[in-house]
């Protein structure tokens, strides 16, 4: 039962938010040029690390703004929240998942 710090509204109950899954999965620049395999990767495949995970969240019951977060999927603890652009550079903020 998290208290999630919306970058705009401040800390609110988890129930006010919706989960948007992995951050930084960009829509392909030219889907038509992708193989079926590559397209399937974009549509269906997402990382599923056990540990810190760069994610997207939206404050559905509040300001309705999307934001980025790094959250530990073992403890559920939010390690950071911020505008999407800040957390989508996931190679710089996301440590390797520990096995």
């Amino acid at each position, binding site marked *: *039962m998290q208290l999630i710090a919306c970058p705009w509204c401040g800390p609110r109950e988890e129930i006010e938010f919706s*989960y948007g899954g992995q951050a930084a999965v960009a829509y392909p620049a030219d889907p038509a040029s992708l193989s079926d395999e590559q397209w399937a990767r974009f549509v269906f*495949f997402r990382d599923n690390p*056990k540990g810190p995970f760069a994610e997207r969240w939206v404050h559905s019951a509040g300001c309705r703004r999307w934001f980025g977060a790094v959250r530990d*999927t*073992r403890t*559920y603890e939010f390690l950071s929240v911020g505008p999407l652009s800040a957390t989508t550079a996931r190679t710089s903020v996301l440590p390797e998942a520990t*096995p």
Partner: protein
Amino acid sequence: MTHAGTTAPTTAPTPPGADLPEHQESLWRSAEPKRSYDVVIVGGGGHGLATAHYLAKLGITNVAVLEKGWLAGGNMARNTTLIRSNYLWDESAGIYEHALKLWEGLEEDLGYPILFSQRGVLNLAHTEQDVRDSVRRVEANKLNGIDAEWLDPDEVAKVCPIVNVSGDIRYPVQGATFQARAGIAKHDYVAWGFARRASEAGIDIIENCEVTGFVADGDRVTGVRTTRGDIAAGTVALCAAGHTSVLLDMLGVPAPLQSHPLQALVSELLEPVHPTIVMSNAVHVYVSQAHKGELVMGAGVDTYNGYGQRGAFHIIERQMAAAVELFPVFARAHLLRSWAGVVDVTPDASPIVGATPYENVFLNCGWGTGGFKATPGLGWAFADTVAHGRPHPLVAPFGLDRFVTGALVDEHGAAAVAH
């Protein structure tokens, strides 16, 4: 005014817990890992153990089952033990119905009192669309030779008198599908029964043995690295449920899996009041009454990814509200204990079973909330898959390639409800 709600029993009957069977005197050998096995099964849960059991039946016994913690301590120890096969699509109906048939003979096969009780499952419909989807599923089940009925609210009340079928609740019950052969079993007994048989057949069950990596040679995996040393493997079978992604990341194999907490709870022991199993997707609750008398309930998955084996309490609260709405008699029951498992969910709510880019590594995962009920069926078909090095026809539709071709087996789109 007197309004005594209950009356004292007139005679001193047998104590309610007197007739439950005892566990066996011997279960499984706690084996030390050998250097090498023909088959290494990663994951000592229900699926891993069932696969081992059916491999042994195929004469393959140089097998290790590696469990990172205590045997069957993951989702097997945490599920709500619902068994049914009334799925919509032919592919799902095939594997789950095969499983159900095996369940019906499993007690004998395992020589273990697994307390399989075929008490039927009601899937309630609350809206016009629920009704359409339910009829669709019932008709599909019948054509697939699976027992299924559509019941109107009065018939629902006959099967389960404590369901509130009055028209003045928020989402009145419009009817239900009923599969009479559905049931429950004792999860620990099932796991231990498989483990015992596998162990008797000479298969090594190795606990506290976590896989930390794989040794690959081209498109073959030659062994697994574990916290108890390296183990060479002729074939590797992955049965790690919610932790599959962790293993696949080690192998560099992507899969469309997301691991989520799934919560469940029990009440105290109560006198028999609930003769069947009731599921309601619309109000997110399912409930049965276990052999000793506790109400066992589950809810929907928590929305975010999580490996923490715990979930958020507001989901439990919402589930309690739904339970009391549908079963007014439950108002006074008490929540005794709640817990969570980690379920691996796929985009089409169907499992992923079959080949991987490594020719001798086979994958079994993505069962979401449906893993327990599939246990013997999956174990049987996966053992065959592993033994013959190709997907058994029952699991063939569930390969990873379906996400590329688009041949999904979409089990949430059409109300073949989860759990």
